[in-house]
């Protein structure tokens, strides 16, 4: 009888190993070495993030994590401070020749990380790569997913070595806020190495240069760029970065991120969950900071489905929620109540609006006017023999908030319960108007109603941005008209008046329960200084220092 041949097993194992590694990268990569310390710089800062960037190409992503890493390597024409202020960065000045034409004068003497100078050619190339169809050739020709962020840009032309002119299809008031999200890339370098070479070794004009990245961008190592021009003159300190090296590392699990900070493996951690904040605050080696958030939470009520087709019921739902209690108990005080359909930090918020107060008596009264009373004494309101039952659909992320809201509704006799979904699964049902009420948020990182207001409160129009996130199926002709006017009105005062009116109507018609806006919470080791979280969740490491 044939004895087993050991070589067979070894051969099998080798076969498996071969198959598994056949497609692995063959060029030797190297994990990061601590860089030589430049003058005035010291230390390495490890930033732990919850998710990985999807790309290091400024033109080829739609993710906040990508932007966080990218904007430490690449500067844009303009940048934003930690709240909503926009400041010149690579642009020295910008002037609107008319409502559709923007003249940009570029800063001179700015160097890319390969030592070449940034000129108008690079700026034109950058924007053409974003707006032209199929301009990104790798891995297959495709159009930049960031085109939508600058959709009104029709063309850009070079008017001098350090000046360009941008032509827009029509007036575009949020231009400055949205230009913040586009970073300048080097034309000559990308033309030489292609997009594939560029994402393997990206080069920008930012305060840090690329050193290495692990597969999947799970770890990206950056090193101080000694020849940095200094950044926006408005945002001090101006000059090269304070630290020598920055490492962006992905730690998806929040409690592991907290552990990494406590164990000294991370210096700054993002997205700190509310329940872990007390542990961090109790630790003297840790500092916890917040910034105004950009993700307002609403409970959208389907205005075409009973009982929410009655405005009194929708208002009652707003009066029945004790937002202050939620902010205190669930968010530890780190949230603000929404004054209406816009975030209080939005540049065009209606300042005369204030949050619906908590008034259960008023809620009960409004429900009574709408015909909802507890006639059979079972503790649940009813109308025409039907009990008031209500399912709040939401995502697992908002469980405590949704359950608290449901509990407050039960307190006034509404049989409310909560059901959890995956967003991509429920989205189609929401758009089809099949759900009663949906609790979620919608990002507002540009601090402008555009990108936000038309998605949530304009009636749905297929193949346009209008109503693409409108889950209450709300549509009011006057509001629709105002939203469209607001998009093309350049004069800030006139624009404010337009949005004030639109917000007032939406507030009064209450297609949603305007809940709260949680703050961005981040934590850092006590050795970190000059650090503050930004509202748009970006981690700007330029000014941050670390004591050794």
């Amino acid at each position, binding site marked *: *009888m044939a004895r*087993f*041949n050991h070589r*067979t*097993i070894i051969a*099998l194992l080798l*076969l498996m190993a071969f198959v*598994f*590694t056949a*497609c*692995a*990268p063959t060029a030797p990569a*190297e*994990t*990061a*070495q601590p860089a030589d310390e430049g003058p005035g710089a010291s230390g390495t800062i490890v930033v732990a993030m919850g998710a990985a960037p*999807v*790309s290091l190409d400024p033109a080829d992503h*739609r*993710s906040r994590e990508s932007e966080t890493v990218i904007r430490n390597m690449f500067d844009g024409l303009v940048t934003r401070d930690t709240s909503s202020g926009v400041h010149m960065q690579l642009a020295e000045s910008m002037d609107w020749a008319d409502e559709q034409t923007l003249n940009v004068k570029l800063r001179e003497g700015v160097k890319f990380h390969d030592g070449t100078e940034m000129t108008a050619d690079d700026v034109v190339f950058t924007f053409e790569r974003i707006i032209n169809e199929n301009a990104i050739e*790798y*891995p*297959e020709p*495709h*159009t930049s*997913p960031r*085109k*939508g*962020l600058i*959709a009104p840009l029709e063309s850009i032309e070079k008017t001098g070595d350090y000046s360009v002119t941008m032509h827009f299809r029509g007036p575009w008031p949020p231009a400055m806020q*949205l230009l913040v999200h586009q970073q300048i890339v080097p034309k000559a370098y990308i033309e030489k190495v292609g997009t594939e070479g560029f994402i393997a070794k990206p080069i920008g004009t930012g305060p840090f240069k690329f050193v290495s990245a*692990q*597969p*999947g961008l*799970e*770890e990206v*190592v950056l090193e101080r760029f000694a020849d940095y021009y200094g950044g926006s003159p408005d945002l001090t300190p101006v000059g090269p970065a304070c630290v020598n090296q920055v490492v962006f*590392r*992905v*730690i*998806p*699990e929040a409690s*592991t991120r907290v*552990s*990494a900070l*406590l*164990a000294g*493996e991370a210096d700054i951690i993002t997205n700190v969950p509310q329940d872990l904040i007390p542990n961090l605050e109790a630790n003297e080696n840790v500092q916890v900071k917040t910034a105004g958030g950009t993700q307002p939470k609403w409970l959208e009520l389907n205005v075409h489905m009973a009982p929410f087709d009655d405005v009194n019921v929708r208002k009652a739902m707003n009066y029945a929620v004790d937002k202050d209690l939620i902010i205190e108990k669930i968010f530890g005080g780190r949230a603000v109540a929404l004054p209406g359909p816009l975030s209080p930090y939005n540049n065009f918020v209606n300042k005369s609006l204030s949050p619906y107060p908590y008034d259960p008596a008023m809620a009960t009264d409004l429900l009574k006017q709408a015909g909802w009373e507890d006639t059979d004494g079972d503790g649940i309101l009813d109308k025409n023999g039907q009990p008031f039952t209500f399912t709040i659909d939401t995502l697992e992320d908002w469980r405590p908030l949704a359950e608290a809201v449901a509990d407050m509704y039960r307190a006034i006799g509404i049989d409310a319960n909560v059901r959890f979904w*995956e967003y*991509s699964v429920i*989205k*189609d049902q929401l758009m089809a108007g099949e759900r009663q009420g949906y609790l979620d948020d*919608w*990002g507002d990182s*540009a601090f402008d109603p555009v*990108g936000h207001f038309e*998605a949530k409160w304009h009636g749905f129009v297929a*193949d*346009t941005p209008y109503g*693409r996130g409108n889950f209450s199926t709300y549509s009011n002709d006057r509001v629709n008209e105002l939203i469209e006017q607001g998009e093309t009105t350049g004069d800030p005062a006139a624009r404010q008046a337009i949005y004030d009116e639109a917000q007032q109507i939406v507030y009064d018609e209450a297609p949603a329960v305007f809940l709260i806006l949680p703050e961005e919470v981040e934590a850092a080791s006590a050795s970190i200084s000059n650090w503050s979280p930004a509202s748009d969740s970006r981690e700007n490491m330029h000014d941050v220092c670390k004591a050794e």
Partner: protein
Amino acid sequence: MRGIKILERVLGTIPIMFGVAIIVFFFIRLTPGDPVDIMMGQGGSISAGELENLREEFHLNEPLHIQLWYFLRDAAQGDLGYSYVLKQPVTALIGERLPATIELALGALIFSLLVAFPIGVISAVRQNSWLDRLSMSTAFLGISMPGFWLGIILILLFSVQLHWLPVQGRIKLGTGLEQHTGYFVLDSILTGNMEALKSSLLHLVLPSVTLGAPVAAVIARVLRSSMLETLRSDYVTLARSKGVAEWWVVIKHALRNAMIPTVTVVGLQVGILLGGNMVIETVFGWPGLGRMVVKAIFDRDFPLIQGAVMIYAFTFVMANLIVDVMYTYLNPRIRLG
């Protein structure tokens, strides 16, 4: 003969992979959710027709059978397409993630075998002793403890409190490891980088223990029960009556014959170790395949999901084949079918 049989079995995986590919292709498309819509997120505006352009780019506007044809045609040429979200070829993405996953699975397997074999054998030999009861209770605990909980407890104890082991990741910064294969332990040995070797081994400990604990428990329990069976068989009694030393009876006569059910279980567990470690990869920030796949599922990144599931299927089939080959070694009367 055996070589030919093995080759036959390897070739037999081709129709299996084909079947898996078709099933995954349809199932993932049956799941509600539009990849383009998810990809564009919320912020900013989307120009009219932009979503349509993306659907066209990914062929999502074509009928399903045409999409399937594109997929199978490209897959036959070794091209699994490119990820909608990460914009890179799926084969490259899987290839660069697999070493981390395999390294962790091997670490967990080694840990579980090192723990399970002594426990299984000793529990059987000293049945109903306090040692047996203790190890079987521990095994029960090992099966019951969810990985995310055990992982976090281990991190808090060994990393945050005692500072013995790193919290997360595969290697510490600044070891200067040159990567050739993507297996950090192997690369450290190949390049003679002792600091990197130490660091990568230390980083492997907690995730391997967490991933391996339930596996060790399963193996120990199976090994114990099959040992108990063989220890009561006639040939063991005969060996003892011939005066063979007890340890030799246990190792040579009982353990070897108790190995067949154990190897079956180990084989299945290897598949689970490779395919089911998403949770552990998340807890320990381990940059492996599992996490990428979970994200791909949430993103409805069809090509990436298809490619990864095919790799998982292939791994299961191969693990079973290796088990079958090992049977013939453990019991020469068994032949490969």
